[in-house]
């Protein structure tokens, strides 16, 4: 088992013929993901790399291929539109890699998805992978190993760093999810934690947060109330100065709220094992499992 994606995942790639879309479609196909369709308006009828049929619209792609999951690699200016189109076509899980989507677009996207019962992961995220089952996104498959640790993170490359540590020490992963660094995202830490708690093949969860906002504190409350599985936590930005935005739109320390110290304290209060550095993950897992 795993969460959100597995062998049943039938993927359609929105923006399959673009630079990033085509590169990562090949990576996903190589990993064994069932990529059943691609969409690029005006390129319907083509066949990508001789194996993936390309359609002009999401409606056509879903009708022809029974795709149930989509991944978005289109530019930021049209990414919200791609999310609307995927939800309207009946896609249940939409993963948006695109970074730089205007935040007001997201205020319109999120209620639209909610009404249709579709789940969005991202935007501005690396996607997710259930090792040896399905990879939807850009997380390098070669650093992951199948196993029983769930990973959820607001960051992309920092996730790879920590997954690399886990795999190297023999801790495989059930699913690794990058939820994205924007202020408005479709799937929160809590959604992922709750799915990992319910997944019989996940034994423990590694949660990677960062400075800014209060999502990690809310997640800590949820863990305390609703999770029996051990959770190991990390917060990036322990040395970041207040008031400066550190890359991610969500990563800014405002006044006294959103600091790494505050988040690490919330983790500790909730009984979460707190890593000081990424390399600590293995030691802490050994203690808790």
């Amino acid at each position, binding site marked *: 088992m795993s969460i959100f994606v597995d062998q049943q995942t039938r993927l359609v790639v929105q923006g399959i013929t673009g630079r990033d879309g085509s590169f990562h479609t090949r990576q996903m196909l190589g990993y064994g993901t069932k990529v059943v369709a691609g969409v690029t308006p005006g390129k319907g009828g083509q066949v990508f790399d001789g194996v993936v049929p390309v359609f002009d619209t999401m409606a056509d792609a879903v009708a022809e291929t029974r795709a149930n999951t989509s991944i978005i690699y289109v530019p930021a200016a049209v990414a919200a539109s791609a999310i609307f189109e995927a939800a309207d076509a009946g896609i249940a899980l939409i993963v948006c890699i695109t970074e730089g989507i205007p*935040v007001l677009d997201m205020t319109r996207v999120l209620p639209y998805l909610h009404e249709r019962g579709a789940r969005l992961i991202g935007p501005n995220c690396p996607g997710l992978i259930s090792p040896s089952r399905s990879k939807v996104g850009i997380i390098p498959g070669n650093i992951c190993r199948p196993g029983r640790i769930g990973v959820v993170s607001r960051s992309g490359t920092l996730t790879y760093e920590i997954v690399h540590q886990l795999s190297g020490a023999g801790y495989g992963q059930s699913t690794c999810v990058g939820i994205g660094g924007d202020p408005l995202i479709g799937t929160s830490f809590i959604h992922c934690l709750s799915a990992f708690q319910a997944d019989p093949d996940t034994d423990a969860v590694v949660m990677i947060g960062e400075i800014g906002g209060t999502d990690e504190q809310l997640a800590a409350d949820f863990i305390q109330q609703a999770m029996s599985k051990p959770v190991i936590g990390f917060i990036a930005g322990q040395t970041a100065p207040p008031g400066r935005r550190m890359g991610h739109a969500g990563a800014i320390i405002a006044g006294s709220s959103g600091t790494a110290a505050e988040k690490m304290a919330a983790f500790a209060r909730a009984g979460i094992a707190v890593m000081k550095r990424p390399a600590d993950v293995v030691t802490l897992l050994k203690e808790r499992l």
Partner: protein
Amino acid sequence: MDIHEYQAKELLSGFGVPVPKGGVAYSAEQAVYRTTEIGGSRWVVKAQIHSGARGKAGGVRLCATDADVRQAAKDLLGKVLVTRQTGPEGLPVHRVLVEQALPIERELYVGLVLDRKHERIVVVAHPHGGMEIEEIAQREPAAILREVVEPAVGMRSFQARELAFGLGLGTQQVNEAMAAVLGAYRAFRDLDATMVEFNPLVVVEDGHVFALDVKMSFDDNAMFRRPNVAELRDYAQEDPREADAAEHGLNYVALDGDIGCIINGAGLAMATMDMIQHSGGEPANFLDIGGGASPDRVAAAFRLVLSDRNVKAILVNVFAGINRCDWVAEGVVQAIREVRVPVPLVVRLAGTNVDEGRRILQQSGLPILTAATLSEAAERVVAARNAGAAA
């Protein structure tokens, strides 16, 4: 992106927000000329910088004669103003706003922000203006009024009315306050703002309502579709290196240490800075080269990091997903050939096409120290920095 007060007032005025009569001036002569346009007998000259708390820093002058206005403008223009929000380096004043001075009876607070919890625009109001909202939230949280805006239908007039009555305004003022709030909402929505603030919104002696001081910030990600707003950007109010970084699609924040950092991804960049500190060093900067970084972008990153004279060693840490190690390695090699790198360089690559990336670095024959893990990279760059300092 931030804009000046006078620019925000011009924009908001176009959306029906009542603002005091006034105009911008770039010289003392122009400031005096503004008074004849505005009329009346009392004016305010306000320094235009991207910061609040200007009044307490001496950036707002009340004037009763043309000579006062001339003197105020002369005093402020060309000065560097240090406020509680600018940091000790302050910000340069190149423009002043000259406005009619209003006889104020009441000061109120109204702010529109994007609320992460509600995932919507939220309008916040408070019956006492002048304080910062964070301060109000701490002192009198119960008195804060809130309206959450449904994105599909927009802000409705009843919501503005609830706020206006909630602030204790009289009937005549309610209509004017509603116009101010609804106008601010439309400007927020139509211009891709992330914040609109009236602090204070005032009621004057004859009962009219004005947005006396306003602040607007915008979503950088949306400026591609708001050229009229984007052109209001004032580079003189920004750190030149951060502005230069933005031009190249890089995200740079200058810090106080001496170890330059070039990293892909904001989370990894923060974690790498943390690791440098754990290893006994101090990062000179935050720098995220983003996904899909081309050799040109990596070269630009080197130039940027080296423009900080304090830098005594550089750490490149790339864990490639959407990025590719071979592109980064090419960028590093190209950068070292183009830009002289006079300090020790540690490069750590991992992820997509890592073998290809390492091969490019090795075959370059350049003096590059490598590391396999983040911990090793942090220790190595701190050691290289210390060795350089000792020699």
